[in-house]
């Protein structure tokens, strides 16, 4: 049971973002810029970064949500599964491997990122901005994962939830729906 009273029809982060809409607004804006804004990384690649960090933090809700989002953008579910098991053997570019390793180091601690991790990414063609965004995406999911699990939010009862959520994240992004979420009540 969640540590605080959130709406029952809104599991995981979705209930927290409705619980305190004023703190939710900048969190949503930051996520929208990083994961959906203009970037030389594709939306699928950025969702993979979110997936790797959430998986490393063992946050079940966020891992399932961003795995589903990555799968929709990539139009397959093998890559997301592979990066969660072993980045080095995953079917992604050398640049993405280097960025995913940086994301995983950031998850451990900012101080775990060493010059050699950065050098590898740059040698594989990563730009400064791509490295910046990788670090900030991973750091942002360290926030999300702790927020979701620190308040013991619920997982959805219905396993189809994440498919619908991923559709919503693809079609509408991360900003609050203008009509809110009452239509999701059973």
């Amino acid at each position, binding site marked *: 049971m969640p*540590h*605080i*009273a959130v709406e029952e029809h809104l599991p995981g982060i979705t209930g*927290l973002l409705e*619980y*305190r809409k*004023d*703190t939710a*607004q*900048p*969190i949503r*804006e*930051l996520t929208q*810029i*990083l994961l959906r*804004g203009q970037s030389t990384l594709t939306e699928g690649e950025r969702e993979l970064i979110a997936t790797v960090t959430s998986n490393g*933090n*063992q*946050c079940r809700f966020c891992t399932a949500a961003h795995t589903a989002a990555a799968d929709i953008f990539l139009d397959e579910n093998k890559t997301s599964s592979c990066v969660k098991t072993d980045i080095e053997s995953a079917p992604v570019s050398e640049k993405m491997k280097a960025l995913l390793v*940086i994301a995983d*180091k*950031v*998850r451990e*601690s*900012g*101080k775990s*990122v060493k*010059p050699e991790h*950065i050098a590898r990414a740059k040698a594989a063609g990563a730009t*400064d*901005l791509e*490295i*910046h*965004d990788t*670090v*900030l995406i*991973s*750091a*942002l999911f*360290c*926030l*999300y*994962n*702790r*927020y*979701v*699990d*620190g*308040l*013991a939010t619920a997982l959805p009862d219905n396993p189809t939830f994440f498919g619908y959520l991923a559709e919503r994240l693809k079609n509408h992004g991360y900003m609050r729906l203008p009509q809110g979420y009452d239509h999701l009540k059973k």
Partner: protein
Amino acid sequence: MAHIDLNNDLPGIRGPMAYRPETAEPLNALAEILLRDDNNTLTRGERELIGTYVSYLNDCFFCQNVHGALAGHYLQCDISQIDAIKDDFRSAELSPKMKALLSIAASVQKGGKHVTAEQIEAARAQGATDVEIHDTVLIAASFCMFNRYVDGLGTWAPPDRQFYVDRAPRRAEEGYQSSV
């Protein structure tokens, strides 16, 4: 030297914030509402103390000094008193409610799953409200982001701790929206 070329010499989080103003805006807005908004039953000093303690646990020199100096400014105590709280908040002169909230913040720093129902009950027993518990968790989680942003990009920080103390009154007055 930072891991990437930030095109500026600003210290700590200000470097990457100036490098990417688009993401700096919501980052500052989040800090402003969590740490400085007056519509909150936790004082600014108490909220800065939560940020300071989490930054200390994450070993982020820049953040623990910026926010430690701000906490000192609001709570009217000096660096050595803030250091004593970081070292052992349970023995410090803090309310039982703040001690319970700092214990929750410390668990969040380790990982969300480390927060126990007993810790939440203990905070409630000392009078903490749901919103205060929510804000404590979100402040701690936010500093787990800020600290990683600062150290993950290898930013530099002024080594003289007095630098942060001297700047705190102005930062307290101007807030976070103007920090770039």
